């Protein structure tokens, strides 16, 4: 590649404007990037990141503005146009067919054909050509699996590499990553970053979208910040700090992400767990949380952190062990009996387990506390439902108070999370288990969640906090437990927490095994 080509922009976007139903969501946004570089795109939810990427990917068409790809006008009408032009999109929810093999996934919309008879259009799928091509691109992403492996058998990280391989097999010039690290373990993240570095060396341009700003600063050469559909600033990554990016994102400076706690934890234990054991999931886990205390649980995905929470709340079975809530044993818990005892559980899967997406905010808010709303004869008073929901919405500072005719799916991620939290707070839980409470929500909403959690502890509730973000655990917790492969591998008392030691404990025992338990016999690292 010549110098001239390398310095000319790969992609240039000028004056992009888009509105939906009269609401302008993009106001004259511009950005540009060169081949072989990564552009970080950050902003709160609703800042216009997704819309601009959907325009780039041919899903939406802009109302105004121009796009140039390698100096030529680029105006995709459909996602297929975008793909043909060399723009690939790696979505947050991966778009693979789990029931098909890796090779079938790579070629599902363009199977190479092979003819048997002359003069007749080739009719048969050329299996051999597919296999060869698949093996070649899998090598490029360091994925040592057979092309015939069903995608269902791959880990989340491996699936993402398959998506990247798919992009490579289409000769992508520009690959857009949307929140690529949310469901990856740390080693998988490291592997992804080394692949991204390799893609850049090959001259492929990367657009990297993430809420994890540390990663953005690490991966990208340039960072563009969007705010409310406006271009808030673009700067080389080395001149930016986290604080600077955040203040650009929210339009004001945030001195303290984690608000100060009002009251120290109490003395009485709220939740005690003793010898909790389930083969392959949890090994003799014991700990306790005092009233008003926040205990963080640091572990990788698959370490048993979510499984532990699900066992305590009665969603998953366990073989042995005892759970006590305020000293009262909770035997054979079911979600109903756990709730009766004073537990609440915010799951990591907000859409799948936290909310009824098609139902109204009001219906969601009261779902866990219906009995308290049933009057004489057990009838539920709809007016009362709406009233208490509006009250909760106000306390949670929800974006809307039209609780009865706004459905949950129309709220932003942060507001959805507030609905789930509000639903549980209506029960005034003694122990609140929060599994990834801030996943996929923006900085402002995160702060709101932290504020709510702190207020909760001031009322004497205990909190078990599970998070992939170590900064969040350190910022909020009074105590941190490290969990790895179903065992508690370390306990760390109040600040200053030793970040390195916590990470080490959380990845102890795990090592290479969790990294590639299923496939890849020998992996030669680059």
């Amino acid at each position: 590649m010549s110098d001239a080509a390398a310095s000319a922009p790969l992609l240039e976007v000028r004056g992009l404007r888009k509105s939906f139903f009269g609401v302008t969501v993009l106001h004259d946004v511009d950005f540009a990037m060169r081949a072989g570089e990564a552009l970080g795109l950050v902003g709160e939810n609703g800042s216009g990141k997704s819309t601009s990427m959907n325009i780039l990917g041919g899903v939406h068409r802009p109302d105004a503005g121009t796009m140039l790809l390698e100096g030529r006008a680029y105006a995709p009408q459909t996602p297929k146009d975008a793909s043909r032009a060399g723009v690939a999109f790696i979505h947050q929810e991966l778009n693979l067919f789990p029931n098909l093999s890796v090779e079938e996934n790579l070629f599902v919309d363009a199977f190479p054909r092979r003819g048997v008879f002359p003069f007749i259009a080739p009719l048969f799928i050329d299996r051999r050509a597919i296999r060869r091509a698949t093996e070649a691109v899998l090598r490029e992403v360091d994925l040592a699996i057979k092309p015939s492996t069903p995608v269902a058998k791959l880990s989340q990280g491996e699936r993402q590499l398959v998506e990247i391989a798919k992009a490579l097999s289409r000769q992508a010039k520009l690959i857009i990553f949307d929140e690529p690290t949310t469901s990856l373990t740390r080693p998988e993240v490291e592997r992804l970053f080394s692949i991204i570095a390799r893609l850049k060396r090959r001259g492929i341009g990367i657009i990297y979208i993430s809420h994890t700003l540390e990663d953005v600063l690490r991966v990208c050469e340039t960072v563009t910040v969007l705010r409310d559909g406006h271009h808030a600033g673009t700067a080389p990554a080395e001149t930016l700090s986290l604080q600077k990016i955040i203040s650009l994102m929210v339009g004001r400076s945030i001195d303290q992400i984690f608000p100060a706690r009002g009251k120290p934890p109490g003395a009485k234990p709220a939740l005690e767990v003793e010898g909790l054991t389930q083969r392959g999931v949890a090994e003799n886990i014991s700990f306790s949380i005092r009233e008003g205390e926040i205990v963080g649980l640091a572990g990788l995905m698959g370490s048993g952190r979510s499984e532990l929470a699900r066992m305590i709340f009665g969603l998953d079975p366990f073989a042995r062990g005892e759970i006590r809530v305020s000293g009262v044993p909770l035997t054979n818990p079911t979600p109903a009996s756990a709730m009766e005892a004073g537990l609440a559980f915010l799951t990591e899967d907000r859409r799948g387990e936290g909310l009824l997406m098609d139902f109204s905010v009001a219906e969601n808010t009261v779902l866990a506390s219906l009995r308290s709303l049933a009057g004489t004869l057990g009838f539920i008073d709809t007016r009362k439902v709406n009233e208490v929901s509006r009250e909760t919405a106000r306390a949670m500072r929800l974006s809307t108070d039209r609780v009865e005719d706004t459905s949950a799916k129309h709220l932003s991620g942060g507001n959805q999370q507030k609905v789930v939290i509000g639903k549980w707070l209506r029960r005034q839980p003694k122990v609140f288990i929060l599994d990834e409470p801030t996943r996929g929500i923006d900085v402002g909403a995160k702060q709101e969640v932290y504020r709510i959690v702190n207020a909760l502890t001031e009322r004497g509730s205990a909190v078990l906090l599970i998070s992939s973000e170590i900064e969040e655990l350190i910022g909020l917790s009074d105590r941190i437990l490290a969990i790895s492969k179903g065992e508690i591998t370390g306990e760390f008392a109040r600040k200053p927490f030793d970040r390195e030691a916590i990470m080490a404990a959380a990845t102890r025992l795990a090592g290479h095994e969790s990294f590639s338990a299923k496939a890849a016999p020998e992996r030669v690292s680059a």
Partner: protein
Amino acid sequence: MTALPPTTAETLPPSAARGPLARFGRLLLSEYFVLVLCVLYVAAIYPVVPEMLTWQVAQNVLTDMMPLLVVAIGQTFVLIVAGIDLSVTAIISMSAVVGASVMTGTGGYLGGSALAVPGALIAMGAVGLGIGLLNGFAVVTLNMPSFIVTLATRMFFAGAAVWYVTFHSTSSSIANLPPGFTGFATGSLFGVPLTVVVAALIAVLAHVLLSRTEFGRWVYAVGANPRAARVSGIPVERTILSTFVISGVCASVAAAMYSSRMQTGSPILGENILLDVIGAVVIGGTSLFGGKGKIVWTVFGVLFLVLLDTSLKLLGASLFLIYIIKGGVILLAALVDALRNRILVSR
């Protein structure tokens, strides 16, 4: 005959052509959309079949509608939890023959006794309850799809009902039912037919249960997202089980209505109504994907289907033509449902 298809085809589009698009959209989304359709349909068919608006026909419509309505109400519960109950017709057959075997004057278990009718009614209810429990348990504990479970119980009990009759009667059904029972179909309370009173009671009860109680909220939540319902402490299994029991018991009430009208306990009583039941509920607007549905909608759906049926019979349409038109209408209902969803999403 030849004038028929255009006439029915006119029933939908006029409302679109007449008013502006927005008004049509609002009508589509309205709770009373299917009721409006019923009125429009009768108005459209009246010039061709003026008998439609006679007292006699109205009464026929009502009596035809009641057993269907009761079964459809039960089915509504199951559909809202995203299940389906195909066994309702077999439950009707089985309840009918078991009930008849209890009360028949020729060798019934309680034949001739004062307890014959109440005993038979209890037996019928027990059959519905039992098969409903069986369906529910298989779905909940064995985690089998309700389509397969109820298809199996449907075949099993449809066969069992015929077999059962061979032990109690020399003919293909069990006749000689006591007048106290057969009088139910013809009896009335303050001029309102008894079947209508019973069906109305059940409809009101079901409506209150679904819209005003904790259980009702459970049903909708489980249908919309069973995982989220479980995390929120809702007894998902118990809720699903209950809907199958409700459907079973409703079917046995319909069995009592049918056999009282036919004055015999026949094992092939409800054989042909399965698709009418599911079709009526879907025409009403209840979603096969769960989480959405109302008793009022089901009432309108059943009314529409029965009106259609009656008018076509009055026109002298052949059986196959009736099937073709009903099939078309159900397809149209599914289309309208899709259209409604699109309007709702774009708002």
